[in-house]
């Protein structure tokens, strides 16, 4: 009797979870389904075709935006990782007061809504442009600064716990054994915190790829857009959906992005699962 009740509970729980999951994926799955037909509006099916995929790669506009998005994501994340990792190491070995105030400032961009970050940066760039440079300074560089502000705190916050978990005697041992401090930093500290650095980098990439507000506020002309305003995927899609439905070729783009994300997620999950199993095995051996 109890078993039956539990079984019903389990089935209900499973149904609920899968129903919500289905609803959450519904908009994307609809786009994907209709990426295989040429109709301009969602909901009309004019026969199966791969034409939208061909259109996608022929669309100069989308390809430019994609290129810009990737360049900004990688450049801003690379800079964030260097600044943030060095910052985390530096702050970790700082005195209490400096540490406290820097940690406080690090929290500001995390709790601030994006629109406030964007507006504050823009106000500063306008101010600098009108009082210092006497010219508009909006360009790739202001956009880059905006994206670094977005991701830098997250690099810091993902490196910091790794520094705290690190065994401090490792570094001291290296010094005692005659290792010069700079090399000890490279060969002892950096490898220890590398997982944190990597997750900080991936996080920066995702934040930058997804950003709309800061990009819309801080961009100027440059990059692949030449003398036009820099378009990223977010700003391009936003401009399009303000006027009408998502352009058909962007449905094809959604499918491709979805596939890439799926592949990454599946491989990460598999490798995590393996790591978990290995850890269990190791633990089992130790127990014996």
């Amino acid at each position, binding site marked *: 009797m109890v078993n039956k009740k539990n079984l019903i509970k389990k089935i209900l729980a499973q149904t609920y979870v899968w129903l919500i999951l289905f609803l959450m994926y519904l908009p994307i799955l609809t786009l994907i389904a209709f990426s295989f037909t040429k109709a301009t509006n969602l909901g009309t099916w004019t026969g199966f075709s791969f034409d939208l995929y061909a259109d996608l790669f022929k669309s100069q506009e989308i390809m430019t935006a994609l290129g810009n998005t990737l360049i900004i994501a990688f450049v801003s994340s690379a800079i964030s990782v260097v600044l943030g990792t060095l*910052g985390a190491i530096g702050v970790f070995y700082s005195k209490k007061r400096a540490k406290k105030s820097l940690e406080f400032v690090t929290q500001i961009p995390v709790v601030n809504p994006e629109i406030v970050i964007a507006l504050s940066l823009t106000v500063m760039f306008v101010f600098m442009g009108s009082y210092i440079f006497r010219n508009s300074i909006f360009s790739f560089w202001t956009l880059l600064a905006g994206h670094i502000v977005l991701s830098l705190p997250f690099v810091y916050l993902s490196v910091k716990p790794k520094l705290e978990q690190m065994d401090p005697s490792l570094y001291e041992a290296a010094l005692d054994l005659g290792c010069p401090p700079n090399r000890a930093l490279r060969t002892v500290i950096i490898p220890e915190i590398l997982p944190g650095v990597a997750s900080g980098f991936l996080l920066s990439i995702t934040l930058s790829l997804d950003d709309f507000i800061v990009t819309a506020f801080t961009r100027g002309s440059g990059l692949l857009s030449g003398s036009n305003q820099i378009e990223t995927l977010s700003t391009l899609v936003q401009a399009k959906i303000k006027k009408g439905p998502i352009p058909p070729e*962007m449905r094809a783009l959604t499918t491709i992005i979805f596939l890439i994300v799926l592949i990454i997620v599946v491989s990460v999950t598999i490798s995590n699962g393996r790591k978990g199993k290995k850890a269990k095995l190791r633990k089992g051996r130790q127990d014996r």
Partner: protein
Amino acid sequence: MSSKSNEVLESKKQRTRKGERFFALKRKYLAIPYAVFLVLFVIVPILLIFFYAFTDSNGRPSFDAAKDFFTSASKWSVLFTSLFIGVQNTIICLLIGYPIAYILSNKKLNKNGVMVMLFVMPMWINFVLRTGATRDLLSWLGIDGGNHPWPATLIGMVYNYLPFTILPLYTTMLKLDKSQIEAAGDLGANGFQVFTKSILPQSLPGIISASEMVFMPTMSSYVISDTLSEGKITLFGNSIYFNFSNSLWNEGSFMAVVMLAIIGITMLVTKNGSKDGTAARGGGLW
């Protein structure tokens, strides 16, 4: 012989110590570029926002922007619409997300966190694209922003913020004291009592950080309300964006100051800062 080797050892020790002291300073200095960047691009801009909020367009001190905000009916309506949709979205996300987080915290249903991954995965697809997809689907189903701006916006908000609710709730649910829950049942509490007396109080930190993750971003969002209501619903984000695109720096800055004040208040009320929040906003993803 031995004294000589001792000397060598001594000098070597001294050198290391010197090097160590020198480097102890140097390691600290690694934070300098980080600190400089934060001062230049976080602190100075925020100070400038305060400067612009309390000056007029000629740069003279004035409370015009404040006056404009507090006397304009449209800005009050923006404030209340934002608060209202923020509260509604937070409640709906908690109601949907709480049971999910509880179910997923059961390891048998959620092997290696695969199910959590599934809930988080849509977040990696471009946010504007997802919002557009939601709008197109809703208007196909007849819930378009032109006729039903409020439900359409709310659905878009829930779509976007549900993962941010589930993650912090899930992390607290993993830490639930299972034996306490079982004990409550064994001692005769019924299902409802077990929930209100044991599970709910234990998961309160998760509820608080999930609310923080949802409430402020909802109030300040721009893309979701603009796209899904077809411009019919103006939230804080839309209003600031409007001020920005019309070069109304002072008015926009004052609104940003209002937002900062609201954040300050919510953080004082909840008092748990953003420790769990950061983990949820993205830290938990990787």
